[in-house]
């Protein structure tokens, strides 16, 4: 399938109809999704109707936006009016949101076509998309392996060519880690750069929406469309959307790039080798590459697994059977709450609600949640100091390539470890993105992660474009 940039140009030039683009996407889904299970809901009829409408507008001579006719998949934790939105949870089965997330409205305004909702770890809690109430998604490169998570459905949908663009959400690495494991580009913007309105909350102070695409240019285009201030989100930055298209010429000369040793040591040898090769390529392009140690980065995992579950325990309280979604009846309202929640949530969600409830409970708040938020301050300070020396930082996206289904399901801590490289940017609120860069000995894709200071997306995309240009031949599933 063509890239979003290409498709939109072709559609606007009327060289191809939006309907034909959508048909190609739907055909690809029909062909491959039985095996991959990237989608929870495919809105083929809605997508066709929308494509026809766009074609009609074009025929009338109307100008369409920069995503004209581009089929897009949305992680199923983004609200779509009248279209099922489940968070891969039984507790939201059958719920039809009465409103669109801000990003959805912005995509539609730009001419995009939503073809469906993708699989995820229930409420975005996981790193493998195995914690879905409707079964796991498989990695298009090797269907015995996970696509990563929690945006595994979105990354698999893009990697397999079912759609050129998907949106994911990143709380501890949930866009970047599956992007790396599936060999696509994944961006976690600066906290507040993209509206969270309509994104079903996991951990409010960490959640960000971002694109998964096959190219850096597509990611830039989508971020330009969905970014920028939204008055419906109090944590939205006041800034307009980033201007990124002009940053993609691959020129990195004189940029100062630091390899974060604390997030690179101890990863798989193949992964480390690709990172070193990526750094060499940037140096060859004229960048000044050096190493830097950011010791608090290693604390990210612990801080994250206190903060995120704590916020989640509160965010997920509302699923009580009263207003929407699942209800399991009880003799009194309290029994109904307990029965509904116990039946509606899966094991990982319950585990995190338990952890978060404990971390906030009387007598433990200071030691756990409070202390984790103070650790976060220290991390922010150390990263800020690092950005005085470097324009961007580099480290692996994930410590390994895609692992086998079931390999880590029995050991939550081992699963959590797969987010060790991505978590720091969520805690600091800084942007980060994963760019495919070659493969491991197993032939599976490897991602390199570019980290930038808050609002540093333009610089980050500049480096990402250079990495993309230097990457060994793309790995095709």
């Amino acid at each position, binding site marked *: 399938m063509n890239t979003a940039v290409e498709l939109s140009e072709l559609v606007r030039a009327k060289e191809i109809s939006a309907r034909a683009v959508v048909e190609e996407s739907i055909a690809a889904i029909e062909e491959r999704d039985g095996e991959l299970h990237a989608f929870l809901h495919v809105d083929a009829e809605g997508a066709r109707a929308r494509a026809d409408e766009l074609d009609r507008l074009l025929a009338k001579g109307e100008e369409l936006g920069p995503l004209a006719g581009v089929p897009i998949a949305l992680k199923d934790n983004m609200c779509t009016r009248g279209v099922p939105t489940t*968070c891969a949870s039984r507790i939201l089965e059958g719920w039809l949101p009465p409103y669109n*997330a801000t990003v959805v409205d912005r995509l539609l305004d730009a001419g995009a076509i939503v073809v469906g909702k993708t699989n995820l770890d229930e409420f975005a809690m996981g790193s493998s998309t195995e914690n879905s109430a409707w079964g796991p998604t498989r990695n298009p490169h090797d269907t015995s392996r996970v696509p990563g998570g929690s945006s595994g459905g979105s990354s698999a949908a893009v990697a397999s060519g079912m759609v050129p663009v998907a949106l994911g959400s990143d709380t501890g690495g949930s866009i970047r880690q599956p992007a790396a494991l599936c060999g696509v580009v994944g961006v976690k913007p600066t906290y507040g750069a993209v509206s969270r309105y*309509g994104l079903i909350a996991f951990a409010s102070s960490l959640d960000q929406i971002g694109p998964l695409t096959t190219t850096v240019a597509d990611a830039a285009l989508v971020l330009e469309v969905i970014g920028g201030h939204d008055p419906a989100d109090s944590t939205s930055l006041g800034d307009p959307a980033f201007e990124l298209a002009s940053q993609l010429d691959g020129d990195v000369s004189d940029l100062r790039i630091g390899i974060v040793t604390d997030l690179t040591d101890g990863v798989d040898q193949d992964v480390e080798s690709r990172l070193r090769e990526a750094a060499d390529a940037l140096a060859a392009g004229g960048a000044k590459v050096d190493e830097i140690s950011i010791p608090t980065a290693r604390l990210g995992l612990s801080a994250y697994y206190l903060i995120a579950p704590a916020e989640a325990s*509160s965010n997920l*309280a*509302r699923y009580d059977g*009263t*207003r929407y979604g699942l209800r399991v009846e009880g003799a009194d309202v309290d029994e109904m709450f307990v029965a509904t929640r116990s039946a509606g949530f899966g094991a990982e969600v319950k585990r995190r609600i338990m952890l978060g409830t404990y971390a906030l*409970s*009387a007598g433990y708040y200071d030691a756990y949640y409070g202390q984790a938020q103070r650790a976060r301050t220290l991390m922010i300070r150390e990263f800020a100091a690092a950005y005085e020396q470097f324009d961007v930082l580099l480290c692996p996206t994930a410590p390994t390539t895609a692992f086998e289904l079931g390999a880590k399901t029995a050991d939550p801590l081992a699963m959590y470890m797969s987010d060790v490289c991505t978590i720091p940017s969520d805690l600091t609120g800084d942007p980060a993105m994963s760019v495919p860069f070659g493969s491991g000995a197993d032939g599976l894709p490897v991602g390199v992660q570019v980290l930038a200071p808050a609002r540093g997306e333009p610089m980050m995309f500049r480096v990402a474009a250079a990495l993309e240009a230097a990457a060994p031949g793309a790995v095709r599933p």
Partner: protein
Amino acid sequence: MSWEIVMGLEVHAELNTKTKLFCGCPNMFGDEPNTNVCPVCLGLPGSLPVLNRHAVELAMRIGVALGCDVRPSIFHRKNYFYPDMPKDYQVSQYDEPINVGGSLQVGDGVVGIERAHMEEDTGKTTHVGGTGRIHGADHALVDYNRAGVPLVEIVSAPDIRSPEQAKAYVEELRAVLVATGASDGRMEEGSLRVDANVSVRRPGEEFGTRCEIKNLNSLRSLVRATTYEAKRQIALVEEGGMVTQQTRHWDEAKGETTTARSKEEAEDYRYFPEPDLVPVVPDDKWLVAIRAAMPPLPAERRAELRAAVPEAPDSAIATVVRQGLDTVVREAMAAGADGRLAINRAANEVAADPDGAIRLSPAAFARVVLMESSGELTSTQAKAVIAEILQSGSDPDSIVRDRGYEAVGADKLEAVVAEILAAHPDEASRLGEDPKLMGFFVGKVMDATNRQANGKDVTALLRKHAAAQLFPSPG
């Protein structure tokens, strides 16, 4: 040995905004259930709150009015499960509230204010089946129109020493809230709700263990419930028992407080900073603007009225200001009406019908008081005209005309009196010598005027006639 009652009150006041605290749904009492709801106030997945600037400014006004330190503040989540709370947490201010410290002058004393913080209201639950009360109900129905309505919770220090003082405190606080425009203060609509913490001690001793009585919805309930609760605690301690800290409910019908059904475990609200909202930081410029826009407070307004009408009774002035009637009184005075009369009519006739008072325009009030001052209306007539305005909102002149009151103006009365004297020449000739005949003539005149004549005026005219008999003018 005597007992001392120690009380602190928590007053929840709904703020007078057009929209809710975190969304644009109307803040409206009495609409059809679940019509003023949106993704935010229903707590739908994915929705996010955005703070209402006007609600913040009203909270700041309350802080300024109560002499609080108005500070940078944040919101927390108070986590507990209850069906009237759409998110199963309440967004409320916790350890960094917007208003801290302060006090309120109540009569001769001062009640300390510990804090006045912002929070969202809950929805409304109706218990169905059984007795319609919480126990034994078959099921419950929830309306979220009120969910997310902005509240300020004003927490007093434990400075209140009697149920009467508690009532006076709430009355004065209510007047302040109304004066600042922060709340309409209508207890009967639930826009002002009071929780009372009550304990008893021997004077000079440490505070006793307190009980909290929840949701007192009228001043009468406040006085009755706290009186009952203090007596209960005193009796308990005098019998050698101990007060246990608990939440109690006031049963208006039975006239007693009962222990709230206790939970299996102590609550643990797991407060933490609301990550969907950012801090509110009132800077000097903002505070200066708030102060500049503050309308005069009740204490100041009472002093002004007292200065304008030194002979008016304290209680009448207090009532007039409490009910926000001082503007109409002042307009009546400006139009030439007698100040004391205006205050009395406002404090008695108008204040008695606060709902009707919104139909009374200052001009209409001024007109009635002026007519009474000038003798065009008797006091009975003036009261009747006011009552009708409060009922119907009609214009005073047309009421007077319709009722035929204006027929008994001064000229007409003189003619009627002369007519009656002429009709009873015998009695008229003896009026000067026999004071008992005065009653006879007053009765006749009143009958002739359908009892609309001003008694004082009638007597005065008759006296003039009598005096003329006793002291005939020379010549």
